[in-house]
């Protein structure tokens, strides 16, 4: 009879290594960050911003850099880049109350709603409770668990009764993660962009100057990118107004 036995002593180091790796990924020098924050504190926002940009270039997975950069842009009265960076930070760490508050505040300042009208705040919070990476990881974990449990089910059919519940749980988790991930596709922050260039950005009826400009988009407007394959233009949609068109890639930045 085949018996698969993975000792605990082999699992623990692997998990520890993975967690340590996660920490090591983000081990930025705290004193350097404090230095940039001091610049911010003293009102030297441009210099602080350059420091935060350095953090972002070294640690693109660190929401702190994006968040602080958003703050610096906001102080410099540039709501477009501020919302862009808050959005980036928020996608990385959606449970961070500060990021959420500042993104909501900046959107409100530009006449946009963070929580759509009629949507309960609790539901909105739950909808964004996990980041895209966390959703993917949860789905992958459920996928692995499901197939390993199926393997166990094949190899130890006598233990089938005990396997059924975790099997269903893994299947349910996989379905939930998958559906959640799909449901998030309508989020304005998935494939989103922010108008950051010279305002107002012109919304064209085609990807070129020879097409008619039929709408003007104010700075900081959140839009959804439909297609980015053109060299110079994004095809975008503004779901709330129900319009779509093309804007120059220099006018908008992807979240």
């Amino acid at each position, binding site marked *: 009879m085949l018996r698969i036995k993975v000792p605990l002593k082999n699992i623990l180091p692997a998990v520890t290594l993975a967690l340590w790796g996660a920490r090591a990924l983000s081990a930025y020098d705290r004193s350097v960050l404090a230095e940039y924050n001091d610049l911010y504190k003293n009102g030297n926002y441009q210099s602080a911003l350059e420091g935060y940009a350095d953090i972002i270039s070294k640690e693109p997975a660190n929401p702190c850099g994006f968040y602080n950069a958003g703050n610096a842009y906001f102080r410099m009265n540039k709501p477009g880049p501020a919302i862009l960076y808050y959005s980036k930070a928020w996608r990385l760490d959606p449970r961070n109350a500060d990021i959420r508050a500042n993104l909501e505040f900046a959107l409100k300042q530009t006449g946009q709603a963070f929580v759509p009208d009629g949507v309960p705040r609790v539901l909105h919070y739950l909808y964004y409770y996990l980041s895209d990476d*966390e959703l993917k990881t949860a789905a992958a974990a459920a996928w692995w668990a499901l197939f390993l449990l199926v*393997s166990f089910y094949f190899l130890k059919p006598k233990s089938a009764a005990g396997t059924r519940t975790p099997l269903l749980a893994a299947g349910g988790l996989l379905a939930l993660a998958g559906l959640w991930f799909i449901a998030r596709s309508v989020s304005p922050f998935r494939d989103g962009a922010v108008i950051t260039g010279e305002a107002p950005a012109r919304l064209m009826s085609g990807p070129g100057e020879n097409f008619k400009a039929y709408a003007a988009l104010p700075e900081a407007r959140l839009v959804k990118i439909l297609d980015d394959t053109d060299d110079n233009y994004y095809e975008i949609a503004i779901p709330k107004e129900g319009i779509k068109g093309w804007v120059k890639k220099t006018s908008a930045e992807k979240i």
Partner: protein
Amino acid sequence: MRKNIKICISTPVRYSLLAIRFSCAFVPLLLCAFAPLSLYAEFSISAEVDRKTVEITDSLYLTVTVSADSASVPEPKLPQMTNFNVYSSGRSQNISIINGKIATSVSFTYVLSPMFIGRQTIPPISVFNGKERAMTQEIDVLVVRTAAPRDPRARPAPATRTARPATQAEVNPEDLLYLTAETDKNAAYPNEQITLTVKFYTAVPLTSNPQYLPPQFKNLIAEDLPPVRNGETVIKGTRYAYSEIKTAVFGHEEGQARINPAVVIAQLHREAVTDFFDPNFFQKFISMNAAQGERREIKSNPLTLAILAFPPGAPPSFKGAAGSFTISAELDRKEIKTGEALNLSVKISGSGNLKVLTAPKLPDMPDFKVYDTMSSLDISKENDVIGGKKVFTTILIPRREGRQTIPPVRFSFFDLAAKAYREIAAGPFEVTVLKGDGEGANVSFVRGEQVGITPLASDIRYVSDKAAPPPAAALARRISALPPGLNLIPVFIAFLSFWLARAKEFRLKNPLLFRFKKARSEAASDLLNAREKLKGGLPAEAAAILYDSLLDYLSDKSGQKVSGLTRKKTLALLKEKFPGAGDYATGEIEDLWENLEALHFSPDGTPPERAKEMIEKYLVLLDMLEKEFRK
């Protein structure tokens, strides 16, 4: 002239109020359901002035009215007005309860004394109910010069601006402007009115009306007594213009009270006064730009007062009221059904600090449910005496039908004139209670009157000092960055497991097939054991292993246990099962079997050479049989 902005809070609030009107049985549930919404009722604010044009020496009245469909309304917040001196003139409140629906309107009156000539603006006045803010629009007022009197002698010169030096008397420069503060008494009981008079004297022209900063009070509650009185007087041979500002103060509790200095900021004209006796002298200076003047800040003298203790012998219903009051009370109807709301209004009128009056304690009324009490306040300041009326309205809901009696409502105060306590009462009241539909609603006037944090502005939160991203997020990012192909590994493992499971099942279903296939390998294993025994000097054991191994091998191949068969039957069985096998092979089997049997059961023991020979022979036979059995 009236400018207002009305804020509608929410329709559900109105529905919740209607629910009180129509249903007694379901009202408690409805109130519970709508309680969070009804905390913030509909309210509005409006402001108006009694005139749009005012002379610089005159004052205008600003009336701010706040209306709400709740028992209490927030007090408006007057903005900083640098172009007016502002004095509170009183308030009046109207409250109505119709079928449980409450409507309150409070008018706050202010006296505004302009400081500069020209178009002046009263900024928006806001009121905040804890959630929503309402505000008025700006009000423009034209401040003009005082019209020159047809006969300068017929009208006294306007005060506060300047004065004419009456005579040629030399005046100390310090005495050209000064401020005095005095009270009408130095000791008083708590809540007894003390009138503070602050007088500003000037013997020089001013470029504008001075700014008055009222004094700070300790252990005193202040109430403005407008309007400002202006006049002229002669002191020690010098003619002064003066402004008199009165304030009523009330001692808070027994002990010492203090009035800190009041401050007046005046702008003096730098140039010498040429002709103080010119009838238009005053207007000339008023029309000057304030920036042309020299700024002077004058302070009054501080004052100390004694707040006395009330004498002993206070009745039980005494709660600290002092003054002169009367009481009256009334019910809004004489006949009512059980479960319906009955309004009992107790009105206390008179002179005294009505703001601090608390509701008289109602007598025990076991036949009524007694709900919250709300109050409305009207303050008058006639003849510089603070007075007015305060009405306490309580909702009573009768429990039982029949003729019910509400006992007298008693109120006690300290009569300042008689220096003695007095207890006054209103009632009793008779009411006929008919049989109603229900027990009654839970009626409450309290509607979010919490004193909370006042938001001043909103801003983004500060930068983060967390150098590292959250571990879970970082780990998730690393995992999600792995090649998607890795996720095929568990699928492969599942397929492999499936195949192994099927193989195992097949083996269990076909045991002979597996024994046939494994016979050679098990025989080879036995050969190794036999060699080990032989090396260990145990040829008999080696021969025994070979004998057993041969029988096992033949059993596995034939599918029958041959140890229970004779050699002849075994060979016949093999011949039948493997008809392709040659006779030589069966002969070799028979020969080896016979030799091994002889060695195994020999009483003389087994010579090592013989055992070794058998091992070699068995090995050759196995190779041969594997080929023969496949034929």
